[in-house]
């Protein structure tokens, strides 16, 4: 398997942007298999943020679809971390 690096947009929705220090980042995302790896990569050593992103109430949305599997899909272009909704 060839390892690739893709330019990916990372979004922190709602109050998560305050924890992440910004609403949006562009990152060079290396190939990875699990949400845990993704969180570790995104948190960049910020363990408080990593713990926050790993909470069960935080949903991960990949390419605008909620991630339900324990394995990341191929072709990631956009990742959003979504705290509980306020609703409409």
């Amino acid at each position, binding site marked *: 398997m060839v390892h690739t690096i893709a330019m990916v947009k990372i*979004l922190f*929705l*709602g*109050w998560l942007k305050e924890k992440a220090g910004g609403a949006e980042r562009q990152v060079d995302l290396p190939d990875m298999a699990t949400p845990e790896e993704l969180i570790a990569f995104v948190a960049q050593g910020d363990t408080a943020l990593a713990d926050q992103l790993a909470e069960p109430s935080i949903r991960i*949305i990949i390419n*605008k679809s909620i991630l339900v599997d324990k394995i990341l899909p191929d072709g990631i272009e956009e990742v*959003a971390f*979504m*705290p*509980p*909704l*306020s*609703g*409409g």
Partner: protein
Amino acid sequence: MIAVQSKIFDPGAELNLFMKGRTDKGAVVSFTGHVRGGGDVTALELEHYPGYTEAEIEKIEASALLKWPGIESRIIHRFGKLHPGEPIVFVAVCAAHRKDAFEAASFLMDYLKTGAPFWKKEIRAGQEVWIEPKATDYAARRGWD
């Protein structure tokens, strides 16, 4: 048909536009939600996730159309900074029978209140408070299961 927009809208004009040329479905129910005034909230700020928010609201609309076949609906939801008295959300449903129109409009609102991907904060006296749906909103939604 749905719209997610920051622009303010005119509920009466939207109601008339929705019904224009429709003579087959005689019963129309509309709901408009406004930013409550009179308290210490000076503004509301709604964030959405472009693309995802619209898709999720379309799913809610589709489930109403499935549950009440033959209805037509219109949903407008705003994002951005909203001030007391301004409309936030508008839902209209037309149907051949009033019971369907009332139920579907009420269903749409219950689902939007708990399931529409918006993140909302209240600005009161310079302080910002992120808000979540109320227990009554979740209870209302469970009522449809």
